[in-house]
């Protein structure tokens, strides 16, 4: 190793990994142990098997309803990201570069806006929506699009910055492509990495959202977990662990697509 190296000593690396690893993993391990309990001392998969037990189906029904609602919300929120946010970002970057800073400010605004504050302002709006559009859970996706906005914006803008959108569009236009073709056949494929990451983040955020749904009295996975937890804490913990695992795999995927994007840039 070079004399000038300021990298940590292997012993320091290991010490940090052990301490932080224990803090992060021990609660999860203890939680897994909790779900495997059978009676006072034994362990088995009885609580995991109970999820599909028809005699308990009625008690667990809110979870399946909440999960279905959450899946619908994911779809609509991803649609908001892909068909409302992304085209507007492309338009701003291509035709209104002077608006870029304003747009960035607006897109990052929700970071400093706590969900609970948003709820205070959304309550009267959703009263109107409830009267006109209906009280379907899917309507929450409009609010979720706002909470997802900063993350989605960052992912998409990163890939826009990586591919010199303006030149790409001008090249396609000079070859005779119309604007729709430019967006569909030239820009979207080049922004695939960012769009993919934005969608996956949207999915992860929607899956874990509780504040807005709970206070606007809509049912999603999280509100259902709280409801069921009052009678049966095992099943809510099991679903929490599975959601955690699902999101972990999702983010590994984002990392993977991110590295594909990076390799593409080298070429």
């Amino acid at each position, binding site marked *: 190793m070079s004399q000038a190296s300021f990298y*940590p000593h292997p012993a320091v690396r290991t010490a940090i990994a052990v301490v932080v690893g224990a803090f992060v993993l021990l*609660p999860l391990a203890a*939680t897994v142990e*909790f779900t495997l309990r059978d009676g006072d001392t034994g362990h088995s998969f009885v609580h995991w098997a109970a999820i599909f037990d028809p005699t308990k189906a009625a008690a667990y029904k809110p979870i399946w309803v909440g999960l279905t609602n959450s899946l619908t919300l994911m779809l609509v929120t991803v649609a908001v990201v892909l068909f409302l946010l992304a*085209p507007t970002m492309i338009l701003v970057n291509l035709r209104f*570069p002077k608006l870029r800073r304003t747009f960035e400010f607006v897109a990052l*605004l929700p970071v400093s806006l706590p969900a609970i504050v948003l709820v*205070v*302002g959304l309550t009267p709006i959703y009263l109107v929506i409830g009267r006109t559009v209906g009280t379907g859970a899917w309507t929450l996706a409009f609010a979720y699009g706002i909470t997802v906005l900063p993350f989605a914006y960052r992912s998409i803008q990163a890939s826009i910055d990586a591919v010199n959108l*303006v030149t790409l569009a001008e090249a396609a236009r000079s070859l005779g492509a119309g604007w729709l073709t430019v967006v569909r056949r030239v820009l979207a494929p080049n922004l695939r990495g960012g769009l993919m990451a934005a969608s996956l983040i949207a999915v992860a955020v929607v899956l874990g959202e509780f504040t807005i749904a709970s206070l606007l009295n809509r049912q999603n996975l999280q509100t259902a977990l709280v409801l069921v937890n009052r009678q049966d804490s095992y099943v809510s913990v099991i679903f929490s662990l599975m959601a955690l695992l699902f999101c972990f795999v999702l983010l590994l995927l984002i990392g993977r697509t991110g590295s594909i994007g990076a390799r593409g840039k080298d070429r």
Partner: protein
Amino acid sequence: MTTFSQRMPLVAESVGGDSPRPRARRLPAAHLGLVPFAGYVAIFLVLPTVLAVITGLFDKAGHLTIDNFTALGDPVILETFWNSTWLSALTAAVGAVAGAAVCYALLGIPAQHPIRSTVDALAGVLAQFGGVMLAFVFIAAMGRSSVLVHWLSGLGIDLYASSNWLYELPGLILPYVYFQLPLMVITFAPALEAIKPQWAEANLTLGGNRWTFWRRIALPVLAPSFAASFLLLFANSFSAYATAAALASQGSQIVPLQIRAALTSETVLGRENLAGALAFGMIAVMALVMTCYALIQRRAERWRA
């Protein structure tokens, strides 16, 4: 920003280069393209923010009043703001130090290494994990019926002898650190990776040693990024609601829970529309924190370039 200003003339050229007739027809169309998103943001971001701030200015009958805002000076409300502040500051500080240590431990491990991608993904998940599910995990892991309590009682230690702390304010500390630490890893890692090996080498050739490198170069360069990350963590704790909602069974010790109480029971401290005033208080704190964040971040990025 340089790329931004460099690109501008390019665009201006391309617009000006079009033949005048199609341009005259297309330009309003391009403006129209902004309308759907602008409308969406107006209804679901701007309007709720404005409503959240101004509902505090009206009483239930719709008359203008500052009564709700005077409630912000009420000792009970002041205490919840104080609770929120110290809880956020404490968990942000612990999360920032521990997260920075993790970033340091990761230095020198190449980006493609499996350890790196696993830590990145794990940090990403856990930073988003602050919510109901996190509360369940901590109840299962260290609640009254957890293995931990079982083992400790075997050793003669009763974790819940003095109070039911996990379900009160102190119980929020560990779960909050649990999502603060990974958020720090995500936000601080780029700053630490931007430390150039040449700086360490230049320090040595100029007669410095390891200590002078950290004391006079690395730490001063990292300080703005660290401060900015700390503020982001503070804001993150300050606005967190779901974990507390699922964990804290009675009382409203922090501001978001106080807002819930105001929203659901309508009369807290005998006041109507108090939620709006509380929301305004939160926005004020968040605006202060995020302004400091932006100022520090600008400085940090200037050095990094």
